[in-house]
């Protein structure tokens, strides 16, 4: 799970010299890793092939610049090509005589109805347009009620349900109601259909003909596998798609289907659904998705989540102490609490590039520390049953003290040992990051990324790859001292994390 491209490339390039042009053989080996990474990220094979063919000539013979490692160089090339292929985000089109019709299509269970509600809310709020929603789903039980409920929740009007009406007729009624009611936008939520179902595919084309939509969005699950190319191509063959909305982008999927679908349809990816709540809709950002597909984590998402949940003051204190190489049990307790608030260790780790954590091994170690809420409470109880002195210096904890703490916290000595061990492991890691310098520990490949990430986060900008610009490369040797602070910030403890909006 945590094997990532940067790790694998790192190990290939570790054996290589650090200067000069990349040879064909080196590039081939790297491209093999990239192929594998893309496939594991669910990019469809034909698209992977085409992508690799595009990258190969760019990589062969490209000069490895001073103070850039070959790994960085290749990742930079791949990353740029990926961003390029994912395409720029495009705004919704409203250039039609109102009501502007928007039609949502896709497979069963891809998230059309929820996305219809989200988009309607988005358009109402950011575009200040009056929206009418209509469900054309006569197929699934209670599909129409679902949209009606979303309408009630958002205060957006929905077309009254008339039982027994066919989807094409509902579409016509919706457009008519949109005209008469002075609506700017009419959103049509259609039933889910598989591209293998000819009757339903024909029905979709008929709806399009009747409603003449300005936007026809393919709503697709970002967890889709290899079949994404065929699904997208077959929908595009029957209606004129104007964009793609990817749902479930808040999951831990790598989202390669996005590339597949964008590649075969050529239409822009416009939105990402990032949660079940009605406001969890984001504009597509190719940079972030590229990072994710390459297994470099969604650091921006992490920082945003951190910004929502963290206790900035406490974080600042811990960061400051860590800079001095101190990491007490109290710090640990505070940090674990923080992490829990952000969706637990696995939630945090899922978004972090494993390169930042020095590779999969450490990530796995950290993941093993994950715990449920009750356990966390128990640990908090253990820590608070210790004396001030014990908390600052856990070495004091001998057998009798452990028994006392176990008794005081209603736990067992074993539990106490577990907490102490966890603290040791975490303190160890922090120390490594502080002393050896991030760069040493993680290898040249990822060092600058890790360092730069922290720097970027403070400004709230994207952790893209500007560090690879030779003029812009951070001095790796300087990273050591600041690294733990940056690392902590990455884990959700910055006081200057970008607030959304």
């Amino acid at each position: 799970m945590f094997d990532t491209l940067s790790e694998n490339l790192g190990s290939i390039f570790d054996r290589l010299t650090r200067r000069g042009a990349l040879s064909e053989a080196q590039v081939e080996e790297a491209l093999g890793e990239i192929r594998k990474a893309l496939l594991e990220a669910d990019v469809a094979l034909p698209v992977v092939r085409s992508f690799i063919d595009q990258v190969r000539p760019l990589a062969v013979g490209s000069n490895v610049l001073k103070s850039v490692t070959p790994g960085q160089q290749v990742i930079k090339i791949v990353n740029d090509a990926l961003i390029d292929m994912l395409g720029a985000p495009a705004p919704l089109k409203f250039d039609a005589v109102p009501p502007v019709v928007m039609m949502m299509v896709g497979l069963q269970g891809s998230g059309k109805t929820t996305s219809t509600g989200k988009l309607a809310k988005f358009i109402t709020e950011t575009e200040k347009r009056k929206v009418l929603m209509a469900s054309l789903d006569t197929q699934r039980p209670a599909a129409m009620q679902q949209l009606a409920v979303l309408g009630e929740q958002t205060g957006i009007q929905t077309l009254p349900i008339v039982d027994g009406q066919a989807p094409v007729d509902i579409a016509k009624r919706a457009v008519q109601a949109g005209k008469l009611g002075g609506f700017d936008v009419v959103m049509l939520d259609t039933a889910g259909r598989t591209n293998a179902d000819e009757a339903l595919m024909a029905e979709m084309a008929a709806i399009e003909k009747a409603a003449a939509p300005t936007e026809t969005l393919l709503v697709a699950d970002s967890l889709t596998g290899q079949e994404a190319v065929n699904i997208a191509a077959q929908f595009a063959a029957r209606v004129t798609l104007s964009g793609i909305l990817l749902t479930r982008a808040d999951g831990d999927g790598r989202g390669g289907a996005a590339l597949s679908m964008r590649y075969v349809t050529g239409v822009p990816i416009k939105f990402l659904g990032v949660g079940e709540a009605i406001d969890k809709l984001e504009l597509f950002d190719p940079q972030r998705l590229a990072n994710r597909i390459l297994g470099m984590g969604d650091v921006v998402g992490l920082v945003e989540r951190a910004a929502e949940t963290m206790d900035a003051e406490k974080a600042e204190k811990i960061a400051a102490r860590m800079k001095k190489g101190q990491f007490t049990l109290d710090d640990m307790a505070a940090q674990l609490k923080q992490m829990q608030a952000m969706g637990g260790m696995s939630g945090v780790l899922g978004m972090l590039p494993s390169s930042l954590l020095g590779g999969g091994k450490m990530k796995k170690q950290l993941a093993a520390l994950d715990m449920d809420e009750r356990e966390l409470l128990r640990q908090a109880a253990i820590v608070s049953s210790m004396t001030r002195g014990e908390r600052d210096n856990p070495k004091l904890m001998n057998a009798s003290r452990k028994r006392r703490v176990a008794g005081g916290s209603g736990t067992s000595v074993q539990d106490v040992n577990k907490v102490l061990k966890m603290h040791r492991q975490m303190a160890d890691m922090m120390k490594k990051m502080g002393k050896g310098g991030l760069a040493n520990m993680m290898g040249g490949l990822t060092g600058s990324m890790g360092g730069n990430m922290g720097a970027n986060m403070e400004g709230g900008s994207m952790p893209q790859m500007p560090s690879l610009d030779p003029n812009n490369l951070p001095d790796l040797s300087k990273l050591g001292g600041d690294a733990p602070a940056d690392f902590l910030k990455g884990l959700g403890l910055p006081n200057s994390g970008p607030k959304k909006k």
Partner: protein
Amino acid sequence: MSLWSRLKSGLSRSSEALGNSLSGLMGGKKLSAETLGELEDALIMADLGVATAAIITDNLRARRDLAELDDGALRAALAGEIAALLEPVESTFSVSSHQPHVILLAGVNGAGKTTTIGKLAKKFQAEGKTVMLAACDTFRAAASEQLQGWGARAKVRGIAGAAGADAAGLAFQALEQAQADKIDVLMIDTAGRLQSNDNLMAELSKIIRVAKKLDATAPHESLLILDATTGQNAIAQAEAFLGAAQTTGLIMTKLDGTARGGGLVPIAQKLALPIYFIGVGEQADDLQVFSANGFARALVGLEEEAG
């Protein structure tokens, strides 16, 4: 349309591409390293994943009679390799006489949990069992209306709570009711959740804990519903639900689409979870018993074996 032909038309449609790419690459010639490579690619395109595709291809490569295999024989051999990985997990679904036999259904959003409950309800009903449904998706809009709709179709009773009600509390209430009414099968529908959301996964664990308060043996089955369209994330789903919902078996839906559901193979290899049914459509009858051999053969574009 018979169930088999329905299944096959779904599966063979889905395996057309794989079948085609196989016949394309065979063209009568003897197998070379190159054609084996293409074979591996075809498996990758069926979502088996890079690692599993490599294992299956390597197994084929190791066969001594490789050079003698013609197109049909190679397909059969390939199906055989896949079936061998799936056979250990091909399992018969059974309902114990314990009342109520509690079945929990979980999975990511839109996987097909509620629809599958509707299908199972009809099946159990037809077997003469009394069935009750618990609408524990109190989150998604109109989720309980949807389940009630299925309940009405199958003429079985549903227990629903208010929107936003505590799912575990509702499950408790439903189980209490099912016990009092001596119901044979209680199916608990849960809200869709992404396995990366720890809080929602913990809620599943809570539903189980709460059910155990009334019946220490419950749930008797915890089914994970997987969508055949899902790619490599299906493996992460299976792992996470196994942890939080103590999954005892799998059902894969949407095999009537063009996706091949090859993700089941690495899951079978890794987790050895029983696979019970496949969903092949939106209607109540569109549920098929999972057959390792049938699945594997359909995956490579072969007919059902005679006899």
